């Protein structure tokens, strides 16, 4: 499990417990700030992620870091994207990673991993989230045993994708959620994202509401067909990335709290 470095976590819990006792602060102080990316400091950090040549965001290899010199706290998580073929898993990852994608659709073969870096301000500290986005083509997922195994192994978070103009992709979600999340003991977090929300939709708003309450899972939407270039692109995906980071962060806090209580 990708818990942030133990020591740091523990210190935070201590402070949290302390503050809770002293000042009756609420948990909100420990949540990532959603506005920070619009501040001057936030923008400076995001600038580092830009590729001047292509005006898209940069990717980083396994031997690289976006902020080489600074000693930013880094937390690493494994995110797995699941959903019917063609619903938009690969497109969503490309969107989240800020890279322009293929214009024509090719089915994904095997597993692709895209590491996405996202700086987040939590309380008074900037933390760099490294989100390893795992994308497996749905047909390879069915055909080869090792592919689903390799994907779910040590997963921290599942992102279930459906398409608003494909009712079946929505209807099969409970089954997928059951298969990937509920049966796991480390309780990975999860979220649902609907693509193609602008097109003729087969999935109704009321159905989404029902689903959210029944499954106790949040449903977000994304528009992958429009590609924004330059810094405006991060403005568009920031809410989604922040939501994911927040959920990951909360999960860790709860985990540490539990551990802390045990100790």
């Amino acid at each position, binding site marked *: 499990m990708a818990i942030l470095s133990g020591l740091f976590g523990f210190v935070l819990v201590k402070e949290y417990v302390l503050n809770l006792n002293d000042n009756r602060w609420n948990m909100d102080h420990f949540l990532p700030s959603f506005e920070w990316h619009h501040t001057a400091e936030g923008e400076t950090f995001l600038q580092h992620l830009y590729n001047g040549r292509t005006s898209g965001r*940069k*990717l*980083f*290899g*396994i*031997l*690289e870091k976006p902020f080489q010199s600074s000693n930013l706290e880094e937390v690493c998580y494994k995110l797995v994207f699941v959903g019917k073929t063609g619903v938009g898993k690969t497109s969503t*990852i*490309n969107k989240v990673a800020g*890279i322009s*994608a293929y214009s024509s659709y*090719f*089915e*994904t*073969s*095997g*597993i*692709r*991993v*895209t*590491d996405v870096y996202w700086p987040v301000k939590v309380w008074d500290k900037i933390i760099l989230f490294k989100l390893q986005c795992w*994308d497996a*083509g749905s*047909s*390879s997922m069915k*055909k*080869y045993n*090792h*592919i689903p*195994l*390799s994907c779910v*192994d*040590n997963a921290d978070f599942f992102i279930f994708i459906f398409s608003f103009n494909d009712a079946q992709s929505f209807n099969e979600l409970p089954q997928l959620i059951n298969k990937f999340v509920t049966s796991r003991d480390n309780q990975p977090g999860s979220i649902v994202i609907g693509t193609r929300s602008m097109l003729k939709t087969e999935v109704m708003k009321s159905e989404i509401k029902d689903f959210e309450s029944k499954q106790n899972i949040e449903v977000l939407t994304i528009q992958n067909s429009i590609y924004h270039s330059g810094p405006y692109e991060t403005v568009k995906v920031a809410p989604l990335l922040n939501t994911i980071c927040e959920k990951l962060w909360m999960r860790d806090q709860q985990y540490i709290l539990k551990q802390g209580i045990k100790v």
Partner: protein
Amino acid sequence: MGVNVMCVTSAGGMPLFTRHLGRAEPLPFSVVGSLNGVHLFSKSHDVKLLNTHTESSTVLWKEYEESVVLIAVSALNDETVLVQLLDTIFAAMILTVGIEDLKSIKNVERLKRELRPCYLLVDKIMECLDFGDRYVGSSTQIFNCVETVLCAEKLSLMVCLESYVECICSLFGCVTVENCIAVATDAWWDLDPVERKLLSHIIIANSNCTAFDIPVFLPGKSPTVPFRLVGVCLIIGVWVTVLCGPKPDLAAIQQTAFQVWSPLVASLRSMLNARPHSIPSTVQLHSSVLGFLLVDKKIGKYLLSSCSMLSKKESRSPSEVLKTFYYQAAASLVDCDKSHKPLETYWCSEYHKVHGIRKGALIFCVMYSASVPTHTMRLISEESLTSLLSDSLSW
């Protein structure tokens, strides 16, 4: 100008897929049906239908494993190229689903679905051809040959690669810089050229992520049991890729890659400047050389180098000119089976000259500025080739 390829089952003429490239319109279903019909008709009369020509295109049929028929319709009037094209496309189909599923088709709909991941490969294969049209297949990829770079760091990379593949219990590994092979293990070079090229296509197609793990059947070496092609991006632009068995899993391989390659990060960074020159700065070529293309047809690899200073008047890059020259003039230096085998060929245009020579299975094409006297091209080409093939570079 363009090409249409379709694949149907031999038994029922059921379409499996069709792909097209360039300004070729996708063929209507009725035409596909008739093209398959004539093939079926001749087969039932024990006649093998090979090809036919219309005013503007060539049509070619080829049946594989008595199970599927590939049909190509192309404005590129060369049957040998089209046969190679179809053979390579069939190899891509094996790579995707394995030979067994293609030999005995149990469920057409399922096979159709399982073949979908190979569309990308089929498109990449078609892009390698030359259509004499700069907007079509404008990649400078050479058909069934992998692109390489010569770099000064070769030795240290090789040592590291050997220990990396050993950690993963594999023999097959390569390091690519901006999609060109910088070093590869002996086993990688022992693969069939078509296999190696298909793997290169996959590596290139996945260079917009940071790691991949893709099941592949090897058309020649392992058509029934899939390997895993596992690539890890070390720094942007530099990848290490291996072919391995079921273990270790991707996360473990990423971990190994981090450990083994960390000490080399400085050398890896310095390699990023290798292109478009693709040769170490220690190799000095004559100042009239604007670029060159060196192709080894036997191993199936090439080295493409272009100098960055270009006259403004030139609308095509040296790479494009060299690719066209290679296909239209130089490639036949090796292929032709005439009684006399030509050794050299050249073009002269207003802005540049191109000279091609053959040495065994090697073809060397050099692009010169127009000012170079035609008769000195041979001398400069020979000299340049000698320095490129020197032992110290070990291309």
